[in-house]
């Protein structure tokens, strides 16, 4: 634990390829390590929820502008979540298409489950849960490729390597 945490260090420096905050939150290219993924994800989720909660509590009646603002915040959170997850997949040397499996497939299984028999429904729910756990481990817990991969340099070594 002697070294300072790297996850907050994100200056703009194209020479060292160290990511700035706007790239980290909004870009779909490059790689992102786990600590920055969680820091950015949790921070933006809390800020977004506070904004939406503030709008909901402050409004006696739903003003169209406030509804539009809440919707914009919601869409921004979805964008940020996608950008963070895609960069984590890149860090794992995986294409962004994997999000179809990790994000979309469990939802599809939940939708079609009740339309088929109850036994199949339980099976589909278990498969969906398994995919979600796999996604959690893959995107949030497993270390990225050591050294450069086809999506960019190792985010844990750029700017620190001699």
């Amino acid at each position, binding site marked *: 634990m002697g070294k300072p945490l790297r996850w907050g260090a994100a200056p703009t420096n194209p020479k060292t390829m160290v990511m700035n905050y706007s790239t980290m939150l909004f870009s779909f290219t490059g790689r992102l390590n786990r600590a920055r993924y969680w820091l950015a994800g949790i921070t933006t989720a809390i800020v977004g929820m506070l904004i939406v909660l503030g709008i909901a509590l402050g409004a006696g009646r739903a003003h169209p502008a406030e509804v539009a603002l809440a919707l914009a915040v919601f869409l921004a959170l979805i964008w940020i979540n996608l950008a963070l997850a895609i960069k984590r997949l890149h860090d794992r040397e995986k294409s962004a298409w994997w999000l179809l499996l990790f994000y979309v497939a469990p939802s599809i299984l939940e939708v079609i489950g009740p339309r088929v028999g109850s036994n199949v429904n339980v099976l589909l729910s278990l498969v969906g849960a398994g995919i979600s756990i796999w996604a959690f481990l893959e995107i*949030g817990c497993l270390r990225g490729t050591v050294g450069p991969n086809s999506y960019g340099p190792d985010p844990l070594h750029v700017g620190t390597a001699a």
Partner: protein
Amino acid sequence: MATAVISFTLIASLLALAFVILAIKEDDEPDS
């Protein structure tokens, strides 16, 4: 039934939190 569901959810959440903390700590010391 409700107790079992709550217990399972609690254990799963704590396990997930432990995984996240381990991952973040590992990122802090990538070479060790």
